[in-house]
């Protein structure tokens, strides 16, 4: 299926401004994500999963290795990939509609068509009545929906999400998770979803990639056994609890060994 | 205080702590993505690298221009430096001292009046409601145009310049002290009361230390205004240092002495301001500035 993401031997270090020398964040990352898969990256804070996501998007260049999508090398950001940020990153002087249109403007889509496409996506995320509101007037959950709509509006083949629900409260998060799945199940894009919440990763994903260490490596890939569409009962199910425990043990082991 | 006034003061000063908003022009770097990606670390990136280059270039341009266009246009650097010596050796510094004396007098009176008023305004809402329209309006009006009134009232003797300094200097200390006291009321007073703090201790242990950085900021800004008022007052009636500045620029033109005087004034102003800034920094608690916004 098209949209396969191949990460080959990626490494990345950051130079630390306060001292000399560098911090190695990623090393020897190999990953293959089949097209149409919902893939979750899970790991402790600061383990480089956000960095890896940005390398896949082309926002950051790796020090070694490469990323290929459908065989083509990723050299920079592209509107073929929609990015959703943890801090929303909406433009406060633009209405919801104008924010969603941002990517479409970059594509050079003419005004009439822009409005149409933006409105379609706004409807998809259930913000129809809030089209002319400003981000400052919206709750966190609503703002993130705008962020999601903005990414979807350019009709990308990949959706890259960096802890998108990290800044909202629990109940909102669960609702957003369900909405995300509903939207995704209609389009079958390839999704790479970064989170530190193990339950979220298991509930949402087809595949959970566990990363840990410093520098980070991929230590385990779990194929999530639950069917699609994801039923609500999965959340409390014993299978999920067992998997969660497994992953947690995996992460904790890393923590004690590598300090 | 309206947020816009806070912004105005933030803009007027480069380093001001008011209502938890902190804007430091010199310490916040620009967003990294705006800078060229992958810029290598050359000598130009060192803090003093480009500075020395540019400042040196300016001095060079000055010197060359002075040599080409002659002393009636621009004095050479050595001439200017010699001028500084002349200012002292030929007795002009006496005028400087006289100006300084009046500046100090006026400024201290201004502080003695402004800080208590500001404190009361910050502490009691009704006083602020009463006075703040006046303070804010007078603050932004053209104080320069009041000078003729003062001349008529006081002639051109001692009190004229002192009054000008007071009028110019009084606003920033009022506004900043009020902000400091208001800050304490907002953030700390309740806590102190919960610990049954006596009024005396409230003043010395809570208000004083917490509001101190605000007050010092007000003093610093007020000082700048005091100097500004003094120069204008002296230019208007041709007295003191202002008279010297005017004289050296015209009759007869001694631009070497003029720029020497400018350098002395700048040095003095910067010195006082930096000292006050350092005091202000010392008085600020280490981490709290970011907490209130």
């Amino acid at each position: 299926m098209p949209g396969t993401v191949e990460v080959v031997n990626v490494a990345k270090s950051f130079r630390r401004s306060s001292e000399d020398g560098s911090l190695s964040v990623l090393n020897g990352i190999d990953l293959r994500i089949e097209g149409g898969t919902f893939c979750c990256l899970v790991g402790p804070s600061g383990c480089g999963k956000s960095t890896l996501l940005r390398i896949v998007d082309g926002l950051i260049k790796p020090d070694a290795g490469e990323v290929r999508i459908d065989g083509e090398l990723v050299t920079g950001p592209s509107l073929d990939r929609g990015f959703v940020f943890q801090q929303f990153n909406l433009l406060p002087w633009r209405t919801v509609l104008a924010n969603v249109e941002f990517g479409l403007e970059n594509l050079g889509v003419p005004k009439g068509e822009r409005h149409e496409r933006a409105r379609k996506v706004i409807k998809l995320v259930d913000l129809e009545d809030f089209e002319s509101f400003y981000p400052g007037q919206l709750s966190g959950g609503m703002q993130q929906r705008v962020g999601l709509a903005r990414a979807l509006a350019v009709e990308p083949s990949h959706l890259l999400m960096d802890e998108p629900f990290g800044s909202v409260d629990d109940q909102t998060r669960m609702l957003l998770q369900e909405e995300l799945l509903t939207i995704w199940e209609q389009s079958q894009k390839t999704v790479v979803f970064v989170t530190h919440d193990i339950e979220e990763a298991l509930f949402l994903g087809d595949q959970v990639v566990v990363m840990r260490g410093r520098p980070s490596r991929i230590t385990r890939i779990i194929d999530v056994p639950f069917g699609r569409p994801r039923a609500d009962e999965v959340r409390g199910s014993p299978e999920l609890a067992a998997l969660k425990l497994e992953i947690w043990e995996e992460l904790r082991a890393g923590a004690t060994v590598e300090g | 205080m309206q947020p816009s006034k806070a912004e105005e003061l933030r803009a007027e000063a480069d380093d001001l702590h008011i209502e938890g908003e902190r804007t430091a022009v010199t310490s916040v770097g620009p967003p990294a993505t705006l800078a060229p990606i992958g810029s290598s670390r050359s000598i130009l990136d060192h803090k003093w690298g480009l500075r020395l280059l540019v400042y040196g270039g300016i001095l060079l341009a000055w010197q060359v221009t002075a040599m080409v266009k002659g002393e009636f246009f621009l004095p050479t650097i050595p001439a200017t430096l010699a001028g500084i010596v002349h200012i002292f050796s030929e007795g002009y510094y006496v005028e400087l001292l006289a100006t300084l004396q009046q500046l100090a007098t006026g400024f201290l009176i201004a502080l003695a009046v402004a800080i208590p008023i500001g404190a009361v305004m910050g502490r009691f809402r009704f006083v602020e409601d009463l006075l703040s329209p006046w303070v804010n309006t007078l603050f932004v009006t053209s104080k320069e145009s009041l000078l003729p009134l003062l001349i008529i009232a006081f002639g051109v003797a001692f009190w004229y310049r002192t009054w000008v300094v007071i009028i110019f200097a009084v606003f920033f200390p009022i506004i900043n002290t009020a902000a400091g006291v208001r800050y304490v009321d907002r953030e700390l007073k309740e806590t102190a009361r919960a610990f049954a703090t006596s009024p005396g201790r409230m003043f010395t242990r809570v208000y004083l230390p917490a509001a101190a950085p605000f007050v010092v900021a007000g003093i610093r800004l007020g000082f700048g205004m005091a100097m500004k008022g003094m120069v204008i007052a002296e230019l208007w009636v041709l007295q003191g240092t202002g008279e010297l500045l005017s004289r050296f620029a015209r009759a007869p033109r001694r631009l070497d002495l003029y720029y020497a005087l400018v350098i002395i004034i700048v040095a003095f102003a910067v010195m006082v301001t930096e000292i006050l800034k350092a005091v202000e920094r010392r008085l600020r608690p280490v981490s709290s500035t970011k907490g209130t916004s």
Partner: protein
Amino acid sequence: MTHRRRAQSIDRQKLARWGASIALFFILWEIVGQSGLILSVVPPTDVFPALAELFRDGGLMSATLGTLWIAAVGFLIGGVLGVVFGTVIGTSERWANVWDPIVSGAFAVPISMFIPVITVYLGLEFEAKVALVVLFNIFVIIVNTATGIREVPESILEMARAFNTDRRDVYRRIVFPWASPYIITGLRIGVGRSVAGAILADLLLRAQNLGLVIREAQGSFQLAELLAAVFFITIVAALTMGLARLVEWRLMRWKTS
């Protein structure tokens, strides 16, 4: 709805208090003036007729326009240069490093000390006065612009990159809109500084326009006229700055939330 009504009643309270303050001021002024307590205080009942006369015979209107024109030209020049220069400082850390000490220093020193030497290089007329106005307003505009540009968060710029925004467009569509509140505040303050600078220029460089009115009144010891002129200038300055604030408020409406 109730929110708005409450806001209206608060406004009315404020207005009433303002009105009372002003009334009190005029009453006090009248009393002090009539009593002759302070020499130069002339009561409003003498000042306002003098003001009227200044309008009729003294050309107060054209004098005001003259000074305001100088302020306007100076504001335009200082505004453009200030925003451009502020953008450079706000964008490039190198250049910020170079110019920050100078810009900071400009706030600490009395700019008026350059008035005598402006005369040397630019004469006493229009150019010199505009130059003084620019010196007065440019530093505030520079500082505010630079601050606004530096405030643009990294994450927003990252978002722009992720959505493949043209580098040229980033300034127009992201940086300047984000920095605009600061820039506009700086320009608003610049308006006030420009007016003050223009008045000073008309007083100290060559007495013209409003400066001339004042000098003449002072010279002929026409106290009532002097007070009238000063009073009028104060009103004009206050109105100009109030107008600038209004413009700022209207432009920044999206920030109300």
